[in-house]
């Protein structure tokens, strides 16, 4: 995984660095050049501007309706951007239909052809390109071998299980060796176990064939485990593009902080800032956290302090000490979730389950605290699910 923030993929990519594009165009990079997609007055995608590198596993993560599928259909050629350009390998894709682009899309419902056998499904892209029957069959068998389903070629699609269909859809998309594989929430129809299994499998296939995978999902688990980089989208806007660890540990907007993983959000006003350490005035008293991205705040700015439940701990004498009331405890197998409340602000605290039994101290007073470098202060903004 490439560490840090690779150059040229920041959402606020300045127009002046235009020549940069020319240098990456030689490869099979995908460039979204200020792409906006509108349907009438509704803006589905607003000024998406990034480069997806050849061979990268790139995910678009966002709640449903955030425009990620629209963007994917734009890359695959089912629609053209209202503004901006889509470039693949340096070539402007405007007016080039989905059948002429070096992309293959795996649909949410897979869209396997129900009237064809598995082999015919996989060989369909070859058939329409005029490849002979014998060669088609050979290629289909090779691909079935690759997805570890040898011998199912003559079965009908409906005779396969969900996971098998998934793999057949991937094999079909790979049949003509596209440069880019686009996946539109392909795992959403599978059960939990299979979904986890397919995550590993997709990642393995991607590394095996070395293609660019562009993956659309609303499931942060999928995005974080598989991707080299993740773009978090909300309401048509790409909020942050970073490797998964940066997305989780160093969110750049309040939406990303609240959407990816669990977070306690404590609203307040900036009191003072010393280098990256910000003190804010909250209903829970004065708390300290890190200013994300070295941002400078003025006293009195509206801001939100985010602290992950696993970084809250119980005990006396901790920094950022808060006195909270015990509300309830939920057992989640590997962890226990403590729901607390302090001065009207709900707090959630997560503890790894090391055995033992649950505390039932309803109504009791619990002293909690957290290290200032674990907490992130972000400007006030939209929260996920709010």
């Amino acid at each position, binding site marked *: 995984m490439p560490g840090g923030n690779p150059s040229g993929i920041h959402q606020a990519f300045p127009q002046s660095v235009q020549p940069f594009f020319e240098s990456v165009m030689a490869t099979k990079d995908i460039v979204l050049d200020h792409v906006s997609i509108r349907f009438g007055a509704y803006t589905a995608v607003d000024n998406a501007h990034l480069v997806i590198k050849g061979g990268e596993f790139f995910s678009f993560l966002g709640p449903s309706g955030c425009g990620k599928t629209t963007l994917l259909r734009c890359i695959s050629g*089912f629609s053209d951007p209202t503004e901006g350009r889509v470039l693949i390998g340096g070539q402007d894709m405007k007016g080039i239909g989905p059948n002429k682009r070096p992309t293959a899309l795996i*649909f949410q419902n897979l869209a396997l052809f129900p009237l064809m056998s598995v082999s015919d499904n996989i060989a369909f892209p070859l058939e329409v390109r005029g490849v002979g029957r014998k060669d088609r069959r050979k290629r289909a068998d090779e691909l079935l071998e690759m997805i570890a389903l040898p011998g199912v070629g003559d079965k009908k699609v409906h005779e396969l299980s969900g996971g098998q269909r998934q793999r057949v859809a991937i094999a079909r998309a790979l049949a003509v060796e596209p440069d880019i594989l686009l996946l539109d929430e392909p795992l959403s129809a599978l059960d939990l176990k299979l979904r986890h299994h397919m995550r590993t499998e997709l990642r393995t296939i991607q590394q095996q064939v070395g293609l660019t995978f562009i993956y659309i999902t609303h499931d942060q688990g999928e995005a974080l485990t598989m991707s080299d980089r993740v773009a978090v989208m909300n309401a048509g806007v790409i909020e942050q593009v970073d490797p998964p660890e940066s997305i989780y540990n160093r969110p750049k907007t309040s939406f990303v902080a609240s959407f990816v993983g669990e977070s306690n959000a404590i609203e307040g006003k900036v009191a003072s800032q010393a280098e990256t350490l910000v003190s804010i005035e909250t209903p829970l008293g004065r708390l300290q956290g890190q200013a994300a991205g070295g941002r400078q705040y003025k006293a009195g700015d509206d801001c939100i302090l985010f602290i992950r439940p696993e970084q809250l701990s119980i005990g006396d004498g901790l920094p950022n000490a808060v006195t909270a009331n015990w509300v309830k405890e939920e057992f989640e197998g590997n962890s226990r979730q403590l729901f607390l409340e302090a001065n009207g602000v709900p707090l959630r605290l997560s503890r790894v389950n090391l055995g033992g039994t649950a505390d039932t101290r309803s109504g009791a007073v619990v002293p909690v605290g957290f290290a200032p470098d674990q907490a992130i202060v972000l400007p006030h903004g939209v929260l996920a699910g709010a």
Partner: protein
Amino acid sequence: MNRGTGGGAVAAGFSLLFFSFLFGPLIIMVITAFNSSSFPRITPWECFTTEWFAVLFANDRLMSGLLNSLVIAVSVVAIAVPIGLAGALALSELSSRLRAVLYTVLITPILIPGVVLGISTIVFWGALGRGVGAEYGSFFFDGMFLTLAGQVTFISAYAMLVFLARLQRFDPILTEAALDLGATPGQAFRKILLPFLGPAIGSATFLTFLASFENYNTTVFTILSGNTFTTALASKVRHGTDPSLSALAVIIIGVTLIGAIVHEAHTRRKEVLRTGIARRSRIYGNPVLKTLVHPLTVFLILAGIAGLATWQGTRHDASVCKQQVLDDKRARQQELLEEQRRKMQEQQKTTAPVSAPAGAAGKANPSPFGGAFSPNGLTPGREEPAPADAPAKANPSPFGGAFNPNGLKPSQ
């Protein structure tokens, strides 16, 4: 139905009634086709005969009408099915508002009475023909062409409805997937949509063929002086029916039954193959039985039976039996005649001695029919009422006593 509440008997009774209502007329019609009586009936049963089939096939008007009907039906299928498919595809691509308008337009021919369609077809094409100065022999005035034109207007709407129903179950994502995998729009249509529509094309073909073949309302106008099967049949019925129509019914029922059974064999086989229980099945696991229930085998067997029955039928000669029946009839007629004659002679004998009083009684009868309906008119031997009637001497009959029961007496 719940057996405990006695519902079983009710259900069985109802089913029996229902099925006799459905199939009773058909069964009776089939039986009448083999009765030699020249009016279609079961009783009295005269002779088993197959001559009505010969009569049917010897009917030139009906046979040429049948040929016309087949030519028209095939042409209608060839035109209406593609039009219906195109209409359905257009409807499924349009915006919902435009779709509603176009749907109404396309469906209207079905709602308009066939008679109106028939007349307007003649009027339209006639006007068009005269407008372009076509002569009377041209296709504008040809019954076959007009019938084709008239039937296509509404039958293509039937086809469209069939395709629309199927298209509603089509996932347009599949076409997108085909395009994405490199297919041209034409390939996506041929390889994805058309195979999906396969069953609908089959049923649309069947439906349009039947709709054209059995159409009467429109055809009776558009065929002009010609004949199709239905119009020929209708005029035949108008002029009095005979069992050759029942023979026709037997043929149609036979063809339908064979078609239905073969189709059923086909669906069952497909279902078993689809679910993959073929190997475990008692019938489909057995190589002999498996071949036996194959739709093709079923068809060959049924066609063979039908062929054999036809061959036997052509060899059957009912003339001996019919002669017998004729002889019986003649003998019976003779017998009746004899009896009549005998009765009359008896009557003559008994009436002769009492002719005078009877005449007196007749004269006294005030009936305008000369006492023909008098309770005693036919019992001239009875004397009792005579004195009572005697005073009324003058006969008031306007027929001058022509119907007097004794009027015939002098001639014997």
